[in-house]
């Protein structure tokens, strides 16, 4: 799913880019050829009852892409509502629009089609209105006056080739009609084809309602529909860019891709990108949209519905789609935010940070004795602080003790050092100790002086003391065994190399074998 989405997005972008690039070249030559396709489509649309046409298109589209059928079920209703609005002739419009949308969708979804073809088809789809609409919508033209707002919009749409997001939205926001909602929703990247379809459907549907579009297209000049088409394409390309950036940035994969569609009304996730969203919101809110469209959008937002279909959809379809998309949602949502949690970037980052801290806190909890039972961070921190303080105090106390102990043991110290050496040798006090001694010749001399004094005492006593130290230290060093063998040899070697007094070496020699026996 993820890979597909990404690929689709890329392909779409490519297509659109191609479309944008080849717009001028491909569009115009196809005006002529488009007549055929359009007329044929119009024939189909007119001959078939509306529902049939939509169903066929739906099946076709389903074969092309695995979109939820609800999307397409929705078409007939929409067209019906439109039909209720308008004449029978009007009904033809939605059907044709849906069918054409179906074709479009096929173009968009199947990347195997060469881009020029898609561009052509798209051009064919978009361009037909100038030529085909007059045949299709003669009655409607008379019924509906041309909308000046649409002309403005069309004029602005030419600027859409820049792919600017806000630019896109602004003109749409200015549209006074319910077309607002489709256009607002259109930027959705997750299922762009639907957004696309919706956008176009809405245009055509509105064409049926307001009829600004066909009128302008058919009567005034052919350039405007082309603008419209380009607007669609450019809208997608412009929208694709943020979507792509989202892909790379979010790392949420395709699931994220669906969410991170640039439409604000869609995902709750979406709000994560607070910057774009805020811009988007501003742009969206600033034009005073009609109540209907805003209501739709808000409904969609509240439901967290991702599908742009909500455009013309009423709440029912939105619910369906949200339910159908719930399964997909669950896959990735737990990565970022659970339901009901804030989703803007700051709160997400904060949550991640807190999770990291609490995870670390667990380690700390394990470390500090008596802290594992404590619940609550404040108490835990108290415990930790107390522990650190006690440790530091202990260090102080022990150093004091060492200070008091040492002077008294001035005589014995060097002997203890020798013993320490033995002990350290067993415990892995390695060559460094020996190095330290060799680096300190005066000390070595002292040690040599001191050890004979020890040597005067019985070797048994020395052995006993050493053994006791070993016991004491063995309690501390829980597993000295791992380091004993190699370091012990080194230590012995070093001791021999150090050239201690014969007596001391005798002592050590007499004691060490017992350690060796005792240790392992």
């Amino acid at each position, binding site marked *: 799913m993820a890979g597909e989405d990404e690929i689709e997005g890329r392909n779409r972008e490519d297509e659109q880019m191609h479309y944008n690039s080849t717009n001028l070249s491909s569009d115009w030559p196809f005006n002529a050829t488009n007549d055929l396709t359009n007329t044929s489509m119009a024939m189909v649309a007119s001959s078939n009852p509306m529902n049939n046409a939509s169903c066929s298109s739906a099946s076709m589209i389903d074969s092309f892409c695995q979109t939820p059928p609800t999307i397409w079920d929705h078409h007939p209703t929409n067209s019906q509502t439109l039909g209720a609005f308008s004449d029978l002739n009007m009904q033809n419009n939605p059907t044709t629009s849906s069918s054409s949308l179906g074709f479009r969708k096929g173009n968009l979804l199947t990347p195997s089609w060469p881009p020029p073809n898609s561009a052509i088809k798209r051009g064919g789809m978009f361009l037909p209105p100038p030529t085909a609409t007059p045949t299709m919508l003669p009655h409607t033209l008379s019924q509906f006056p041309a909308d000046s707002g649409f002309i403005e919009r069309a004029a602005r749409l030419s600027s859409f080739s820049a792919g600017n997001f806000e630019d896109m939205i602004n003109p749409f926001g200015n549209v006074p009609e319910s077309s607002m909602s489709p256009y607002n929703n259109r930027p959705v990247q997750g299922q762009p084809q639907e957004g696309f379809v919706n956008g176009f459907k809405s245009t055509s549907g509105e064409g049926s309602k307001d009829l600004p579009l066909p009128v302008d297209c058919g009567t005034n000049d052919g350039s405007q529909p082309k603008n419209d088409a380009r607007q669609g394409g450019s809208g997608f390309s412009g929208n694709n860019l943020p979507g792509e950036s989202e892909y790379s940035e979010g790392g949420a994969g395709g699931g994220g891709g669906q969410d991170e569609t640039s439409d604000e009304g869609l995902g709750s996730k979406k709000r994560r990108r607070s910057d774009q969203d805020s811009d988007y919101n501003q742009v969206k809110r600033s034009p005073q949209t009609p109540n209907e469209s805003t209501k739709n959008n808000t409904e969609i937002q509240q439901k967290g519905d991702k599908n742009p279909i909500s455009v013309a959809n009423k709440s029912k379809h939105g619910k369906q789609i949200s339910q159908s998309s719930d399964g997909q949602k669950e896959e990735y949502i737990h990565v970022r935010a659970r339901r009901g949690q804030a989703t803007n970037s700051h709160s997400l980052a904060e949550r991640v*940070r807190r999770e*990291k*801290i609490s995870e*670390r*806190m667990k*380690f*700390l909890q394990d*470390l500090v004795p008596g802290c594992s039972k404590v619940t609550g*961070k*404040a108490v835990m*921190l*108290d415990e*930790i*602080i107390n*522990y*650190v*303080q006690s*440790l*530091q105090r*202990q*260090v102080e106390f*022990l*150093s*004091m*003790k*060492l*200070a*008091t*102990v*040492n*002077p008294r*043991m*001035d005589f*014995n*110290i060097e002997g*203890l050092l020798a013993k*320490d050496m033995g002990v*350290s040798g067993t*415990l*892995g*006090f390695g060559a*460094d*100790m020996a190095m*330290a001694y060799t680096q*300190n010749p*005066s*000390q070595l001399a*002292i040690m040599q002086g001191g050890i004979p004094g020890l040597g005067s005492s019985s070797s048994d006593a020395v052995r006993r*003391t050493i053994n*006791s*130290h070993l016991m*004491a*230290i063995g*309690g*501390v*060093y*829980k*597993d*000295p065994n791992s*380091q004993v063998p190699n370091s012990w040899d080194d230590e012995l070697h070093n001791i021999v190399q150090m050239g201690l007094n014969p007596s001391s070496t005798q002592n050590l020699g007499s004691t060490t074998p017992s350690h060796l026996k005792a240790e392992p």
Partner: protein
Amino acid sequence: MSPSQQPTEKNPTNLKNQFARRFVRALNSLHNPKKSAHDNQMHRRSRRIKIAAYNAMASVVGSRRTWSRAVLWKIRNRSRTQGLFRNNRKRVDHQIVTNYHHRHHVKLSIKRRNPNPKREVYFDPSRYSGQEAKLRKLVPGAENMDSWCLVDEATDYINCLAAQVEVMKTLVDLYTAT
């Protein structure tokens, strides 16, 4: 920042061994008869031992950790300033007071410098800021950390401190036994 810092020692035994080695070496140098004759006072002696212990632990940990860096920096600085003071006292004895203020000032400014300038200053107003502030004071070099790093450092610091205390305890036992 955090992932670059590895835990100091996977093996606590190794940590203890290294620390004990260094600490005993430091104690040996402290018990050099010349020096021991020089400082008879218990207080100074215990301070020196304490500093030696911290120094040994921090140098075992090395520069991998912020707290060890801070400890090493503090100790080095302290020894410098101590040397400075001693020198100054001598100078005062010798009636040479020139340059004192200047040098003192320089040293102080050095002391105040952030031991870890790479870490950005970030105080987050969390609920536990009071306790966190306490912990910051306890963990060396943690004054300017964010709380995640603080917890991380505190974990490591406690680990090392516990090992240090254990080794010191055994050493005390060892010395007092005989």
